[in-house]
């Protein structure tokens, strides 16, 4: 790194789990992968759990194809990566937690099939179950363990989607709700009938079948959820907020930050991706236009002036942002890049171009 980042390195070395949150379209997946690659290049055995990476990033990580298995990145063996696919991850989850016969019965249930597709914030739930699996303490197999797991979260403008994700299915399979739906007489049976008025009786019948199929697994869902929630609150877990300096994006990032604070979760670091256009050959913002020169020089200066103005606006917005949304380990800027990341070396290099907000 060109700037003094020793405090950043020390912080990174102390983490076992990094959760990257941020609004959509800010390059969160790339930033999470870059952070993982950087940690791996510092000798930490790292796993990046990513959601729906762009094709080029996937191939940079060696994640071609549709499988969601963990794969070691060939060019950087300390780094492993897995891409989460909602539908197959749900099915895998069911197969993991129950007998083959029971899993088949669940997988064939029409309500399960619909819900595994629509489960709001499905990705976040699946990511959390997967996180629980890779970080589990009791292991019956020789699956690898990691010094650091970097969890990329789905684009959402609500942090609550992520924080509440581990308990989502457990809450749905809440003891009282299940009992209600499975009761055949009494006041709860009447209430379920009421629901039929709102949804249609066939719908309620299907929901009851769904509950019948999943009721036995309720406790397992609940205990895994509790463990994952505890993991998110461990000392060695860090939340990193990734955003871009656009006004609407910053507004969404601000909401995310507030929601995390409201749950007493500190943001450890803020990354501003594509924060500014760098002066050619450097990692710092373009210089101000200079006076003088011929007609061509004056014309070119207008291009520089425009870029300079955009940078100045973005830097102003970012500085304003951090006065209202703090982070314990500072705010870091990744300059605009002219091309997408194509391989692991470029991914590692990304963190080499990071600039502290205080330096611009």
């Amino acid at each position: 790194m060109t700037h003094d980042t020793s405090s950043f390195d020390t912080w990174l070395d102390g983490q076992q789990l990094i959760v990257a949150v941020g609004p959509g379209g800010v390059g969160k997946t790339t930033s999470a992968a870059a952070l993982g690659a950087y940690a791996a290049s510092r000798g930490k055995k790292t796993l990046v759990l990513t959601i729906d990476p762009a094709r080029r990033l996937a191939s940079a990580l060696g994640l071609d194809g549709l499988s969601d298995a963990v794969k070691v990145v060939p060019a950087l063996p300390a780094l492993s990566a897995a891409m989460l696919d909602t539908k197959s991850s749900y099915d895998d989850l069911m197969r993991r937690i129950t007998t083959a016969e029971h899993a088949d019965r669940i997988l064939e249930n029409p309500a399960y099939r619909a819900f595994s597709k629509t489960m709001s914030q499905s990705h976040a739930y699946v990511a959390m179950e997967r996180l629980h699996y890779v970080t589990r303490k009791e292991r019956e197999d020789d699956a690898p363990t990691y010094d650091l797991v970097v969890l990329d979260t789905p684009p959402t403008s609500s942090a609550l989607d992520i924080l509440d994700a581990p308990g989502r299915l457990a809450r749905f399979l809440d003891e009282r709700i299940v009992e209600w739906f499975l009761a055949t007489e009494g006041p709860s049976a009447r209430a379920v009938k009421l629901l039929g008025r709102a949804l249609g009786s066939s719908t309620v019948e299907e929901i009851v079948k769904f509950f019948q199929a999943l009721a036995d697994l309720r406790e397992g869902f609940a205990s895994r959820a509790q463990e994952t929630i505890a993991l998110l609150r461990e000392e060695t877990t860090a939340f990193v907020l990734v955003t871009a300096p656009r006004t609407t994006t910053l507004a969404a990032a601000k909401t995310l930050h507030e929601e995390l604070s409201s749950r007493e979760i500190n943001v450890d670091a803020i990354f501003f991706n594509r924060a500014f256009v760098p002066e050619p050959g450097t990692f710092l913002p373009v210089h101000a236009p200079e006076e003088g020169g011929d007609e061509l020089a004056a014309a070119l200066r207008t291009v520089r002036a425009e870029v300079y103005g955009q940078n100045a606006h973005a830097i102003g917005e970012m500085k304003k942002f951090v006065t209202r949304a703090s982070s314990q380990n500072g705010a870091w800027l990744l300059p605009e890049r002219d091309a997408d990341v194509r391989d692991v070396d470029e991914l590692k290099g990304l963190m080499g171009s990071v600039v502290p907000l205080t330096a611009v």
Partner: protein
Amino acid sequence: MSAVHLFTGKGGVGKTTVAAAAAIAAAANGKRPLIIEVGHRAQMNAVFGVTTIAHKPQSVGRGVFAMCVDPDEAVTDYVVRHVKLRGIAKRITQNRVLGRFFKAAPAVQEVAVLNVVQSYAEKGKYDPILVDLDATGHAMMFLSLPQVFEGIAREGPLRALLDRFTVLLRAKTTALHIITLPQELPVEETLELNEKLVADDNVRLGSIIVNNVPSVTLTPRQRAAVFRRDDGDALLAKRALTIEHTARTLIDSLKKKIARSTIELPRLPNDPTLDELLELGRTMTEVVS
């Protein structure tokens, strides 16, 4: 029945700005547009400079109305609308276990949002209705709700609502517009998304809206001269020209591959004013008129 314009596209492509621009221009044409923001996004208020946008339509200026769907209130709306007997509706919405069920059950919120869009479209008080959908994956799921519930909701109010939604999505006055940026990845993803939408065939497809199209203000002679120099200014100009060229090439390929209309929106200065948005909106004739 109101005209319904659905906007989708990956995060960061400017869905909110584009929907706002279209609404402002529609209002300037004497219409009464309603923007429906989905998925607690809280971005539209920043565009119009109002503190908050709540679940009920409110005037946000320039003749535009906006609302941000609150999932819990949307569920209440659904029950009140579909359970005709008031006493029973009240018993459902006030039942604590059912309340927990509604909060936790998958797809309940999506159905409730669908109900909001459907009911404003049917009432016709606001026209057009501009729906700022969440990220692409979520939008795809939203549009396929009638299929998703195929095997589950076979009769009853939910089935009826889904059937009416299917009709609405295919109406001549409804269109789903894809918003994208003239950059490699967003264009690639737009082509993939379009392929899926065409295959699913759930909704009438509208325009491809390319936002933030760059243009460099250099004459042809100056452009040629740039490539004979290698100082910082020239390198920055080359960068700008490359971005402009890439954008042009990508837009041309989009037009070739997707036969529907393509709307190009110029790159605006930071934080566009409402007047600048009006100008932008006026170029989206297919959406506004």
